[in-house]
């Protein structure tokens, strides 16, 4: 089970269909597209177990592929410190 959640200090800025994440500690910014934003929102709401289903509904992708994509992104976001273990 995924127990990742957004770091409490991360600042979100919605911008032209993207979501920009700013880590105040490093001053680094990361931009999420619509798919990444959906994954981020799913993590925020604590419903990551349903991320594949939601991506499949929203973007008509294969659920298995969707889960793989979500796992890759969350691993990247954890590596840069935007996600932390709950």
């Amino acid at each position: 089970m995924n127990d990742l959640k957004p770091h409490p200090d991360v600042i979100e800025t919605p911008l032209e269909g993207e979501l920009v994440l700013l880590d105040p500690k490093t001053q680094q910014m990361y931009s999420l597209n619509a798919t990444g934003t959906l994954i981020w929102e799913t993590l925020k709401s604590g419903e990551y177990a349903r991320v594949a289903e939601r991506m499949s509904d929203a973007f008509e992708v294969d659920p298995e592929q969707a889960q793989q994509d979500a796992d890759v992104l969350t691993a990247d976001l954890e590596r840069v410190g935007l996600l932390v273990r709950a």
Partner: protein
Amino acid sequence: MGEYTLDLLGRRLTVSVASESLIYWLEDHWNFPEHARQLVSEWTFWLEYSREPEPVELRAQAKPLEGAMNALEVVWTDDGAVWLLEAGGGVCLTLDEENLKVRLSWYGTLEHTDALYQGLCEAMLSSGLVPLHASVAVKDGEATAFLGPSGTGKTTTLLRAIAAGWQPLCEDFGWLEPQSQTLYSWDRKLHLLPDTLQVLERLFPQVQAEDFDGRKHPVEFSSLAQRAWSSPLHTLAVLERDPAQVSEWQPIALLETLVSFYGSTGLPLFKALRQPFSDLSSELLRHLESQKLVLGSGELPL
């Protein structure tokens, strides 16, 4: 001496027991009668001189304040207060959003006012104003803010804009009122580094800069053109110095503008204000024009 009050763009600053020297400093750095009665706000700032020493454990927890012009450190305490520390002084900030108040408890001498200056900036930001480190010029009643890191060419671009007939508004710093998107200058003079002074001498040979003040050469705005003290902000111009390109305006991605905008505003120190500030920034960027201005070869297209 007794209580002293000052209007800061409609915000009321009250100093509980002000010394003459503190009043002099406040008048010098914070009193802009040109902006009197332009804005109305319910926010109040309460500045008191603290006779208490700072808590001994603070310095050990302090972290460098990113983006500060001078060596400042910051500490966030569990009670929600923010401490700004410098060698020999500091200020403790507490925010009361419900009652629209910021309390600043300051200790130090007038040789140690960097933390106090930054603290007052934070109070202004807490009250809804956006600090903008930029040079700004006005053309046809609309202001353009030239943004970029130190050394990019903000002051040089301002001088070129003035030479092209634009009205100067500020050279380094102003406050943006987000609802009306009006920018208020917070500069009394231009302050030129020696290399920028050469640009001044070339563009305005009749203008004499004041004597070097140890860091920069002050120049009166009025010696260059009739200045504007406030103006609606229309465009964010992100400067890019690149001698390999021709000087020109270029389209820019909003993300790049956002990076530059945050670089010019900084983030609130009060963590509770950061997400609202980000939402506000997003809204502002939706309404303002943004472009890149390449500072390359040839005349600037101003």
